[in-house]
């Protein structure tokens, strides 16, 4: 597709890139857009969002989050759609299994997944507004569309790869902690998030710092994962994290969607590169 053209102004060689560019705008762009739509529809299907009113079709999944490094934590989690329903925790210290249910009167969901799904849908809406009947007049239009789609896909991917970093007081007062029946014991905190294609669960075991402690109190900042020794203050009590248990498990359909995002971003970038071959050939002439 690259043409090496010596500087001649009116030879037939200058004609050819124009015709090829017209072909690009009329045929190739729509072929790529169709491919993109197919890939993103597959990705969107993985999120499996039912239409409102059909709640019963929500995906029901059982996750067994593997044991952490020394087998200190095992967790079995039952999810309906994006919302956890039921959780069984086994922390090694005590041989008993702690069982918690998520309250029915409150809602909590993995917002990361909903946000990623919404970004994918926005990308699909952008693509569907430019279907086969639409006639692209300039390369700039194509670039603009590709930039907009790539922005949505990058945001979708970032939602899955960048879990929120919270401070310990934010975790303790978060909506998640209020979700359990029976309530979580006061010396434990839980955090759920998605990291890439893994569902991660972290359990923090706390102990109260006595008011006259000799330890130097330094409240910990915000982080995705806090370490043992991190301290925080809540409601005039000071706490220190004594143990951190982290378990995770791979969610296969999340892995698929990340692969779809990468493929789609590459398709978009390749189309932009094809357009830019012409723009650099014509040396920034408005085209």
């Amino acid at each position, binding site marked *: 597709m690259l043409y090496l053209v010596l500087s001649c102004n009116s030879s037939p060689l200058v004609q050819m890139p124009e015709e090829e560019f017209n072909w690009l705008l009329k045929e190739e762009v729509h072929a790529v857009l169709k491919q993109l739509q197919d890939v993103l529809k597959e990705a969107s299907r993985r999120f499996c*969002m039912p*239409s*409102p*009113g059909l709640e019963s079709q929500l995906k029901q999944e059982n996750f067994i989050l593997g044991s952490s490094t020394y087998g200190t934590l095992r967790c079995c989690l039952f999810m309906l759609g994006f919302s956890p329903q039921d959780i069984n925790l086994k922390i090694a210290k005590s041989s008993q299994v702690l069982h918690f249910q998520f309250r029915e009167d409150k*809602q909590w*969901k993995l*917002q990361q997944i*909903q*946000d990623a799904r*919404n*970004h994918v*849908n926005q990308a699909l*809406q952008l693509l569907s*507004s430019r279907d086969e*009947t*639409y006639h692209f007049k*300039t390369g*700039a*239009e194509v670039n*603009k569309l590709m930039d907009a789609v790539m922005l949505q896909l990058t945001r979708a991917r970032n939602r899955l790869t960048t879990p929120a970093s919270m401070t310990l007081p934010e975790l303790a007062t978060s909506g998640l902690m209020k979700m359990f029946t029976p309530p979580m014991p006061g010396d434990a905190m839980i955090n759920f998030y998605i990291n890439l294609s893994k569902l991660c669960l972290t359990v923090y075991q706390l102990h109260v710092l006595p008011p006259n402690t000799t330890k130097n109190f330094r409240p910990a900042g915000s982080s995705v994962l806090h370490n043992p020794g991190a301290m925080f203050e809540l409601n005039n009590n000071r706490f220190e994290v004594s143990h951190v248990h982290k378990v995770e498990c791979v969610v296969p359909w999340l892995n698929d969607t990340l692969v779809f995002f*990468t493929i789609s*971003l*590459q398709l978009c*970038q390749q189309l*932009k*590169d094809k357009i*830019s071959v012409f723009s*650099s050939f014509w040396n920034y002439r408005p085209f």
Partner: protein
Amino acid sequence: MIFSLWSISVCHSAHWTSGTFTNIGFTLYHVVSREMCLWDVNDGRCIEFTKLACAHTGIQFYQFTIGTEKEGRLLCNGHYPEILVVDATSLEVLYSLVSKICPDWISSMSIIRSHRTQEDTVVAVSVTGILKVWIITAEVSKMQDLDPVFEEESKPIYCQGCQSISFCSFTQSSLLVVCSKYWRVFDAGDYSLLCSVASESDQSWTGGEFVAADKVIIWTEDGCSYIYKLPASCLSASEHFRSDIGKTKEGSIPPLIYKIAERLLICPPVTRFFFGRREPFHKLLIQGDSAGRLSLWSVPDSTPRQTAATCLQVSSTISLQEAFDKLKPVSAGIIDQLSVLPGKEEPIKVTASVYIPSQGRLVCGREDGSIILVPATQTAIVQLLQGEHMLRRGWPPHRTLRGHRNKVTCVLYPYQVSARYDQRSLVSGGVDFSVIVWDIFTGEMKHIFCVHGGEITQLIVPPENCSVRLGTSVLSLLLESRTPQSISFQTFSVRNEDKCVFVLMFFDLL
């Protein structure tokens, strides 16, 4: 007012979105950096500034009276499953409107003021096409740390990708919901569908409003607008009101009475309908586009007799460039008297600049690669005041730094951003692929870095809490002009000693 806001927007980068006038100023929200600012429109000062964790896509101002005091709130919706209620003066989040049923992002919302009671309604549509209704009262808004407010009603209306929702202030009984492929009118009492109109294949609606009890205006993303006359089934005054509920009549399109067509804009413009509440009750369609042009159409009240739609002509239009060109006297560039070349009409353009208040100096990089250092006040005096200085040659006293071979694209005085840098260092980047570090007091070129692969587009100082190794570096950001998928970040150290550490990192955008 336009001028002062223009100068503010130069300091922050582009991509402002969602702005609204409040009781004391103008709030703007910046999408990329998630900053929300409150500007005083009289003098252009930024009164309040906050950085938010969430990405907003819409902000609306809501004012209510408690006793004799007026309070303002900002209702924000965006990439999160609720509506945030923010104090309009302090920009703090007070509480939020959340959903119990199918919580999801809100696409668009509208505040409906009630004239009879103290309860106002917020009507919104979520991205999955569910209509949500919340009731907000003035008393509730007075308290801090409130529990979230749940919705009063949640009804699926199957309108996905909703662009706007608006309440008919003429009849107080219908709602217009505009999506990109259709627009629909609903009964505002029980939210039942009154009529639904699909768009032509090429059109993509971006918003709409009621212009009269029986007329709506819908605008598209390429700048066209269409005024339709609503069928009798949508008018509460008509005996046929609500007669079409339950019947799917997507085929019939209401008569198109006016249109503003043949506007082909690549960037979707901002279009708003304005209805004056005082004499002479102007009905105006206002559109601002990416070319800096503002256009106004007057929306007529009458219905024409012709069967075909009448084209509306623009009532008035102005662009920023035209406004600048009309200035008398024409404003001059700040260092024009030093940049005039013999035999050339235009002075050498200034392509980058930085103002250093601590030294009272202005540093201007020019398109021929030279950098001029001038005392700021004296240079401004030359342009604004007449006096003896006009006779002196070479005024104002200046120093020229030469080193770049081509246009200077950015200049930075790192000490101004953070005191951990050397006071003497001035950094500049240009189109000749090089970054030069100067001593600002002696005018010497201290170092020149030439191994970049493209034009320098930006020079950035890392934030305060960066890692120690990056502590005294200045990051230069450039875009490889041939392979747009890689941005290279290169860091180099600007320190007291002459040693400079040079680290090269390549980032692939994908």
